[in-house]
């Protein structure tokens, strides 16, 4: 067993989860508005490639992040355009894009594989970094990590504390009712699909410029999009719970490697797939606990009741449903 101090572990989790946080927060916003963008896995790779190439050619990290975000916006625009305006199944379009963007990334990025490109460095926070114990590990991170933590709070505050967040939730629940209140439901859905796509694009950039720097085939971010989608469900479409789910996943990944020594019969790969059974379990649990009588049955078992409350989460009611304005 490798000895990891608690602080180092925490710092590792914070840094390792940062790109995924960007993606899961983006997808949470998109899904809250009732649009499901299934293309995350491809989008992340395509934007990771774009970010690396732009950074390599221009030496500007800002430009690279912007370009990656733009790629995310463009992919999301296809999903939203075909899904909201052309009435095609969002799932079908998203799925095709997942596969296609991935191949597109490999194809266009081929000449840039395994080159040395710019990376995002660490930005120790003045004063905070000097706090004994936690300071040196928690506050010596890249600005992406700080941004990811801030994004959780911002997403939460945006969704629950602003007018736009309220409108966003309303559209995801009942677009017709939102329309009756003077909200342009389609435009709101489009907007948050694009905003979500932008964040997912940034996640790709965070992978190729910071967490797994460089481009190549494989880049290392493969599969992360699916995991992000699973985590959004696991977190019941609540930004804070989604963030906790993301950190849990990052922790599992780090521990998975350390556990090679402890549990030699379990291949490390098994820890990579852990989020999926967890997600399925959560969904079944949500379904069963919504049945009449479930609450009564759990009444005698306080831990079960608590788990039920924790995992309770309902999908935005209009999620993935095409909305036709009358």
């Amino acid at each position, binding site marked *: 067993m490798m000895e990891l101090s608690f602080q180092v572990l925490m710092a590792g989790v914070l840094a390792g989860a940062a790109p995924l946080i960007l993606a899961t927060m983006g997808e949470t916003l998109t899904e809250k508005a009732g649009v499901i963008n299934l293309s995350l896995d491809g989008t992340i790779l395509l934007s990771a490639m774009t970010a690396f190439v732009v950074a390599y050619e221009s030496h500007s990290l800002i430009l690279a992040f912007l370009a990656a975000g733009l790629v995310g916006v463009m992919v999301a625009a296809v999903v939203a355009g075909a899904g909201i305006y052309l009435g095609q199944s969002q799932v079908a379009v998203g799925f095709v894009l997942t596969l296609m963007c991935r191949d597109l990334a490999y194809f266009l990025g081929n000449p840039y594989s395994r080159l040395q490109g710019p990376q995002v460095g660490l930005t120790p926070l003045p004063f905070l970094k000097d706090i004994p114990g936690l300071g040196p590990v928690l506050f010596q991170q890249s600005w992406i990590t700080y941004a990811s933590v801030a994004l959780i709070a911002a997403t939460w505050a945006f969704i629950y504390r*602003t*007018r736009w967040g*309220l*409108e966003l*939730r309303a559209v995801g*629940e009942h677009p017709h*009712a939102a*329309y009756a209140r*003077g909200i342009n439901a389609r435009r709101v859905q489009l907007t948050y699909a694009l905003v979500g796509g932008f964040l997912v694009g940034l996640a790709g950039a965070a992978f190729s410029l910071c967490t797994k720097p460089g481009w190549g085939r494989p880049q290392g971010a493969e599969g992360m999009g699916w995991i992000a989608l699973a985590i959004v469900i696991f977190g019941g479409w609540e930004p804070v719970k989604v963030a906790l789910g993301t950190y849990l996943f990052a922790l599992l990944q780090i521990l998975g490697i350390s556990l090679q020594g402890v549990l030699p019969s379990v291949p490390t790969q098994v820890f990579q797939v852990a989020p999926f059974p967890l997600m399925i379990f959560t969904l079944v649990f949500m379904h069963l606990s919504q049945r009449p009588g479930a609450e009564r049955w759990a009444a005698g078992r306080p831990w079960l009741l608590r788990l039920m409350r924790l995992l309770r989460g309902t999908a935005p009611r209009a999620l993935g449903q095409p909305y036709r304005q*009358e």
Partner: protein
Amino acid sequence: MHIQLKEIHKFYGPVHANQGIDLTVDSGTIHGILGENGAGKSTLMKILAGYIQKSSGEILLDGQAVEFRNPAMASRMGIGMLYQDPLDFPPLTVLENFMLGQVQGTRLSQAGWGAKLQELAQHFDFQLDPHAPLATLTVGERQQLELLRLLSLGARLLILDEPTTGISPVQKQVLFHALKKLAREGKTVLVVSHKIEDVEALCDRVTILRQGRVTGEMDAPFDSETILAHMFGTPPVAPPKCAKEAGGEVLAFRQVSAQGGRAGLKDCTVSFQRGQVVGLAGLEGSGQGVFLRLAAGLQRPLKGAVFLDGRDMRGADHHEFKRRGVTFLPTARLEEGLIPGLSITEHFALAACRQTFLVPWLDALKEARTRVERFKIRGTPETSVEGLSGGNQQRLLLSLIPPSPKVLLLEQPTRGLDVESAHWMWQHLLGLCDQGTTILFSSAELDEILMVADRVLVFFNGRIVLDVTAAQADPERIGAAIAGRAPDSE
């Protein structure tokens, strides 16, 4: 606000829902809109609220012609509407529902808006907890909230589409009290309803719609007989009746309660004999829909039991009922009864042929040919059902009924059919009942019930309030019972 609607027409594809409606509503009055199901009331109101766009016609507010392209524009002109199907957000809190659509700027000042809500609520004696999730509120409370929200938005014309369905008598009193207060304060109120008593208690004037047209207008005090006549048309001449004498008991409900519809079904005990034709009257959602679904085994009772041929059917599902001779035809033909994309032959292969592994296509085709001919369906066996007209879809559904069912349950069987088709259909069905089939059907049209049924049940608010044989049936009494004024109901 003074409202004038001129020659309003509305087409939903081929459906002509409003056929040149003129309506004038004076400022500071409570104006009622009455009409049977499908008369076009909601359509007209939604046009006025900007939720849908009229096909043609003119809207004048205080003498000024206006055009709304969306609800926001109407709302800015001071028009607010409470929709028939509540357009609110159950997962959000009361306060969030209140704020949604009227907050400007970015921040949600919960405290400020909470205070505003409380103040308004006090004005009307409403009790609302701003932080409760809307889902925990009763229909009446949700309505109150919507009302407050519209007022807070500055509505000067309030449209309420069937506000009294699904709320308790106490809440109804509170609501009426509030509406009268609003009218006194100079607001204009438009109330859509089926119920004469509501209108009598509330309105200064009513307009009656029937099949997309205005059939009458009247000032308070109202004469309910005239209103009923305008609403349901004149009773028809004596209908052809089923010749068969009633036989033994086939279907029975014993103290059945169930949820569903607006009112659910409450403690219902009733039984039916072989060969009876029973009409279920009542406003939509008064319990007759749930009743039919319980009788078909599509829904399970919360309490009590349904008996078929004396057998307790608790625990049996629809397929079991079907095996025992119960057939159910739903209202929404394309949504629930037929399968778009499948041809007529395929429907027969599914429903009317031997259930072998290899589909007996030749038999199905033969069957389809004969039945298409016998039921005069305009189409060929290869026609896919969504290509059939509504009437022909209905004929197809009828043709799918197995040869001699024990119990036939029909939900609004003639809705959307022209007179000729309806007559033809009844001829066929009454032929079945001559062979001993018991028919239970619901209908929004009293004429139809009086024409064919030999027993009439009237549902109101989840209960059977009137159970009479055709001989005793008199349209006025039934009409009154439908509107909740059954002389012998509690």
